[in-house]
């Protein structure tokens, strides 16, 4: 066993400090150490995207990052995007448009979709499919996920317009 490292993370706006082996994968840090269980473990092999979080402004599969690499980083998970009392427009839209069935992939889907809409606020269907290609869903066939993201984009654009 290698020496433990002193790790500092900011997760969903909260500072966390702990000792961990550098080989600990970030998804385990989040789920088992910090009890942030929104990001899921699907494949654990960088394919499925269920563990997607945002790290320093990038969508990252947290099964493919050592906690040591994330030392000093800002991490946002689905919990930092919205909750039962303050659903994000993406969460509202996934609910409204049946963007999920079993729901296992949904935290990763919404976390990735949020970043996609930050980079491209009104994506075409093709751009959504390309931008969401790192997230796999085995239930929906993706059609309603695309619809949900389109609906959220429209909602967010009109909210922005109303605010201006």
């Amino acid at each position, binding site marked *: *066993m*290698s*020496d433990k*490292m002193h790790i500092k993370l900011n997760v969903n706006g909260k500072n966390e400090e702990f000792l961990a*082996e*550098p*080989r600990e*994968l970030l998804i385990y840090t989040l789920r088992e150490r910090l009890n942030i269980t929104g990001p899921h473990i699907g494949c*654990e*092999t*960088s*394919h499925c*995207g269920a563990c*997607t979080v945002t790290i320093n402004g*990038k*969508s*990252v*599969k947290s*099964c*493919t*990052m*050592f906690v*040591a*690499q994330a*030392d000093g980083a800002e991490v946002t998970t689905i919990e930092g995007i919205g909750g039962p009392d303050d659903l994000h427009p993406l969460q509202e839209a996934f609910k409204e448009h049946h963007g999920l069935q079993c729901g296992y992939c949904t935290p990763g889907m919404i976390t*990735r979709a949020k970043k*996609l809409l930050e980079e491209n606020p009104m994506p075409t269907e093709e751009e959504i499919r*390309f*931008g*969401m*290609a*790192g997230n796999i869903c085995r239930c929906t066939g993706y059609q309603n996920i695309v619809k949900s993201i389109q609906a959220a984009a429209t909602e967010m654009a009109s909210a922005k317009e109303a605010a201006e």
Partner: protein
Amino acid sequence: MIPAAFDYYRPKDMEAVLSILVEHGDDARVMAGGHSLIPMMKLRMADVPHLIDLQDVPDLSDIVVSADSIKIGAMVTQAELIDNAELTKAAPILREAALQIADPQVRYMGTIGGNVANGDPGNDMPGLMQCLDATFHLVGPDGTRDVAARDFYEAAYMTDREDDEVLTGVTIPTPQGGYAYEKQKRKIGDYATAAAAVQIVKDGDTCTFASVAMTNLSDTPIYSADAVEALVGTTVDDAAIKAAIAAMLEDIDPSEDNRGPIAFKNHVAGVILRRTIERAWSRA
């Protein structure tokens, strides 16, 4: 999946990186985005007792576009390649290829340096670097040296880079003419069943320059000088394309795996090279 334990280093400069490499030899590995190395470590196919994370080493993330060449730092990510408008104007084939690598999450982390230095025949950038006649920059305890991309790859995961050297960047001559990078893959995120990179220059109706390289069809990326010869001086008609494909097939040496038997790979290689040449020529 839990990788074997390792000591983690995040040095602040290249001197410190090199001293760790010299101290630990092939027990130490540098890591850029980690999206090849970490999966290998999780599968325990790579054993890295000393892991050196390059994220804090300065001067590895620049893209410098000059009149006749382009220099890209090793830590430039695929996402940064895709988003750099100046680079895309000077060498659009880089963006076209990078968009076909893996998926968005992987492209935020994966770097050009890791992609070319890893020596994985499935990676796309090594083939592209053959096509573009890139030069790789290495630094080691004895100083810096340059290696032509076409001389860099020896076998799968075996390159000209020594254990105590770090690849710091690549330089390509500004590409000329039409371009295309075509990749056949089973699904998004997969490595190529076959991929081809072509740059081609048209003068009147005649091809005056071409470059042809193939990905994942041998244990190294393949630059096909004979395919180039079959194209240059022609009007890139059907006969010339057939000759280029025949020449390319002599240069590749695919092996059977879960992407298909050898006959299928040769077939796909031919289809993909034809598409690549035709599209590059239409843009020339």
